[in-house]
């Protein structure tokens, strides 16, 4: 299956609280232990391509750090 959704985490806002990691029903998020944000936190990142673009991570994020995208087919058949 092709990717249908993805997220972008803004490292200026993310505080590495992990709430999005815990909430994601697809379990595609994790904290990036290799990187630090300007504020000194390990930011959330996507680990695999199974994101559905459901938006749950953004709904629970206390720092409005997440932008959620979804692939929009030219002829809308899904949803």
């Amino acid at each position: 299956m092709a990717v249908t959704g993805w997220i972008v985490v803004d490292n200026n806002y993310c505080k590495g609280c992990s709430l999005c990691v815990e909430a994601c029903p697809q379990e595609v998020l994790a904290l990036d232990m290799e990187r630090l944000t300007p504020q000194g936190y390990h930011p959330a990142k996507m680990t695999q391509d199974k994101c559905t673009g459901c938006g749950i991570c953004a709904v629970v994020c206390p720092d409005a750090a997440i932008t959620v995208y979804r692939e929009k087919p030219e002829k809308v058949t899904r949803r």
Partner: protein
Amino acid sequence: MVATAEVIYQRPESFTEVHTHYCPGCTHGVAHRLVAEVIDEMGLREKTIGVAPVGCSVFAYRYFKMDFVEAAHGRAPAMATGIKRVLPDRTVFTYQGDGDLASIGIAEIMHAAGRGENITVIFINNAIYGMTGGQMAPTTLEGMKTTSSPLGRDVKLAGYPIRMAELLSNMDGSAYIVRRSMHNAANVRKSKKAIRLAFEAQERGLGFSLVELLSSCPTNWKLTPQEALDFVGEKMVPVFPLGDYKVHPTLENLKV
């Protein structure tokens, strides 16, 4: 397959580009975001005036891209009253913690509701004084350990948790009084809808509106952010039942 990217969710326009000083995982940030989203959706940003409290959210005016004033501890409803009466065309809301609203400011909130002031109150109940280091609040649960109740709240000594939504719903001037929680995505969505209805109440001139939001304080509860959300769902909700305590008939069938 040809496909374009559709934005499902993005940071609200009513937010500034400042990162907040809140602790990681603190749901003050969720409540801020919901207020900003509702103000965006209703197109109220240019005419809204927020009133910030004393408490962890003392710097709320830095995070919302709109007019804001700062009240003395507990006095936000009094300040909002003055602003709304002088500028009735503006949308006026206060944002207050449980120490601010239910302790030092309990007189102001009761009278604002009693007078039916046409303002909206976002009430953050995290069962503790966050800013000052985790002291007992009027909303602290029985048996809950805080820095000023190190053995747990003893109700014989310190009294019982105060349920503000229930109290305020008994005031004739109140139009919309509900309690919601922010401990998971489904409840966050319900919280947002309630905030929307509270602002709708004000826009329709129906009177005093308040949304009590059960909120977390991972730092002073000494829990991880997720454990703190679980504490809200498992321990706070039974003491502070979620529900609609008063809904003006005009709002009952409103589709938002």
